């Protein structure tokens, strides 16, 4: 696995953290909502991805933000600067791929 490639599940998690820190359950909920229920990260998949993101230094575990401490056991994650950089370069990579596909008039499946 090369360092500049971000697997889809991990990229999705990075994106949910762009607006601010979240805990695991909220990450899963946002992914579920944004994909219309298509992508449901199981606990093992979710935390496996979180572990790898943390190891790369792209996210960091933090204490509960103010106003969210309700449940002391919840663990929150925030995007780090390298994480934001990685997300940006992934967006650049995908944009370029998308542009190529459009240039060849390839339409997504489901559209005529």
């Amino acid at each position, binding site marked *: 696995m090369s360092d500049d490639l971000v697997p889809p599940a991990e990229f999705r998690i990075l994106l949910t953290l762009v607006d601010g820190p979240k805990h695991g359950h909220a990450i899963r909920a946002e992914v579920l909502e944004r994909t219309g229920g298509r992508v449901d990260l199981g*606990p093992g*998949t*979710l*935390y496996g991805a979180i*572990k*790898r993101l943390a190891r790369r230094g792209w996210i960091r575990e933090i204490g509960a933000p103010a106003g969210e401490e309700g449940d002391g056991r919840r*663990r929150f994650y925030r995007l780090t600067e390298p994480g934001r950089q990685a997300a940006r370069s992934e967006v650049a990579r995908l944009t370029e791929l998308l542009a190529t596909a459009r240039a060849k008039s390839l339409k997504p499946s489901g559209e005529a």
Partner: protein
Amino acid sequence: MAPTLYRLALLLLPPGFRRQYGAALAEEAAARLREAGGGRRRIAVLARLGTDLGVSVPREWGDVLVQGAKNGLGGGTMADLKWALRGLRRSPGFALAVVLMLGLGIGVSTVAVGLADAYLLKSLPYPDADRLAVLWPTENWSNEMMDLARSGLHDVRGIAGRGGTRMILDEGGEPEEVFVAAATTNLFDVMGVHPALGRGFVASDGAPGAPPVAILSHRVWAERFGSDPGVVGRSIALGGDGAPRHTVIGVMPADYLPVEGTGVAAWVPVNVDPTANSYKSSYFMTAVARLKSDASPGQLDREIKAWAPRMSEADPGWFTKERVRDASAVPIGRWSTQGERAPVLVALVAALVVLLVACANVTNLVVARTVGRERELSVRAALGAGRVRTARAVGVEVAVLALLGAVVGFGLAGGAVRVLETRFAGALPDWGLSMDTRWVAMAVALSVVAALAAGLIPALQAARRDPAAAMAAGRGALTRRRVTRLQEGLSAAQLALAAAGVAAMGLLGRSLEHLGDVDPGVHAGSAITFRTTAPPDAYPGSADVERFYRDARAALLAVPGVDVAGFSSRLPLSGGESEITVDPEGTVLPPGTPWPVAWDRWVTPGYLDALGTHLVEGHVPTADEDRDGEPALVVVNRAAAYRFWPGQSAIGKRVYRDSDHKGVTLTVAGVVDDVIEEGQTGPMLPGLYIPERVDPHRTMCAVVRAKGDPASLVPRLESAIHSVSAGAPVSRVETLASILAGGLRPARTLAILAALAGVVTLLLGTLGTYAVVSQGVARRIREIGVRAALGADRGRLVHGEMSRATRIVVAGLAGGLVLAGVTGRLLEGVLYGVGPFDPASVAAALGLLAGVGYLAAYLPARRAARVDPVEVMRAE
């Protein structure tokens, strides 16, 4: 429940990941389960959680491996793997022993779990078979009950009934009596299976006066009609005395498994006429129900338990307290295998005992080996290997062995299944036993369990070692006293475990022996059986049929060499039981009690002699007594004599076939020993052997006992029958011995399997004990040799070892006794005809293993004492 299970499943994850995220995972899973609520959604969430773990566990372990390889660090798990393989290559004997032991354990367990799966868990080949249930009482429903249940039970979508009857089929071959199922017209709708050809029954087929129709089984269609599709719509000669022909309306598919037995030849509709007497009083059906989609089998079971007392109010004579108490709805899969449940459970437990003994052996061997590798492990410790690393290395070693064991075990299981299929097909369920990918998964899962069970203790042991002590002690990290104590403890533990395992196997083996050991009550000898039918055209009435059998018997007896011959309406163990209600003389029934029931056999003189039954009391009616005008003399079995006239002689007592005493009065002339008529399980039922002339049967089975070669006899018997009537068929020629063997085969097979499992346990137990004890002595060989070299008396050296062995054996025997008591209690539920503590089994097991223990100590000690001193000094 489910969250706890999930937490347990998390143990499969790599420890590092689990420590960091395990709690979060469990929390998340619990939250999702809470959200889902109950029922189907909860099951869906559980399935998704399971799949998620199934993906995550390998991925996280892969991650650990990749990280380990990246970080170098003298290698993570990869290095452990290399270390394990190197170590095993250096001691191939140890590796081979462990792999074989685990392989045996895993192989035996895989087959047993597969059998249990096929018998107890696999659903039957009907659409949504899990929504089908057999209703209480499991037999004897009347049409009225069927209608009451349909309106009274709300959890069912449909209730169908079927009973059995016999008809003569006279098409495409010799006339033959066949088993025909009388079914309510909705049977196939409820089962969810429809004819492959033609149509199923419609409600009007069961109306009074409807033209008689029949649906053929695929087998009869192929055998008698050459698979001709044109048979649909044809009127065929299928019926009883004076009964009309039937018009074929359909043919069932080949893969339909009839709930009423695989031998069924055709289905005819049950006539429902609410104005007829039989509507209320003819109890002849078994009921099967299909559940509504929102009802569970448990719900239906509760509903029918609540409904039963209402039935009792409607018909207190039939719905007695006992019947109401037994009210239940049994899932069809469980119902159809109820006879096999007990033996399969015993076999399953036996296999798990084998696996446990194998694991215990391996644990002891690995621990003993770890102790023996003191020096090597000390060096590892000195080079900086921490406790956890050492424990992990030992764990990896066991895991490698367990995986190899799984391969061997899977191979053994495959071989065993092939042997079962070719040699013991009768032991397998009707729907067969096939190895599929789930078996591979099972073997691997068992090996993981085995690795965990066998590797845990050695790994913990390795983790406990103290590196500082290892450095200080140089050659031996453990003090000598500790090593000796540990070794002796291990040997004693091994002996105790093996003894308990062997004793448990003795109990299980004797249970299976009891399950399979049935006295058939007849002497098979060289008796030959066959079936024949009095041709309806030549012998139209019952008096004619009676004459046919009288003549046929005389013709058979005239064949040179024939000693005894007789006919019966049915042979032992040939299935398709019918029950009649009887009123034995002197029986006073409290109001509301049902009349006693008994099975009936219609016999000619000579039958009971030809069968070789044992006469207990009285006499068997002779041909002279069996004439019209004479009183009808009946022979009853021991069960009937005991049940109907306890503490009295049965001879001379009268029996009425119905409570209204309308039929012929039967007088008991003799009592014979119980003949196994139905199968190997269950209590013996009362039975009557009634003279055939009372109610002549068109198709009968002959039993002939003769001198000389049976093969040359058969053609002469055939021509004897044909001399009476050229049109009389002779079919199903078989020896009585093969009929008995066929009927008793499943139980015998299981007994053979259990004996094999017992031998394997015995082998594992003795080998393990020998290995562990002798390994302990072998460690001291150098010491013994040195002392012998220094002039110590050899006899006393050996004696010293033997008293050490006594200590081990005594401790082991004490432990074994306690363990055997505990395992016996645990097994109590699956034992038959033997108590949880069987002194003979336990004593034999303890005695045997004590002997093995002594031998294992004596042989190496003697060898050591005889070693040349120079050899020893040089090695030093």
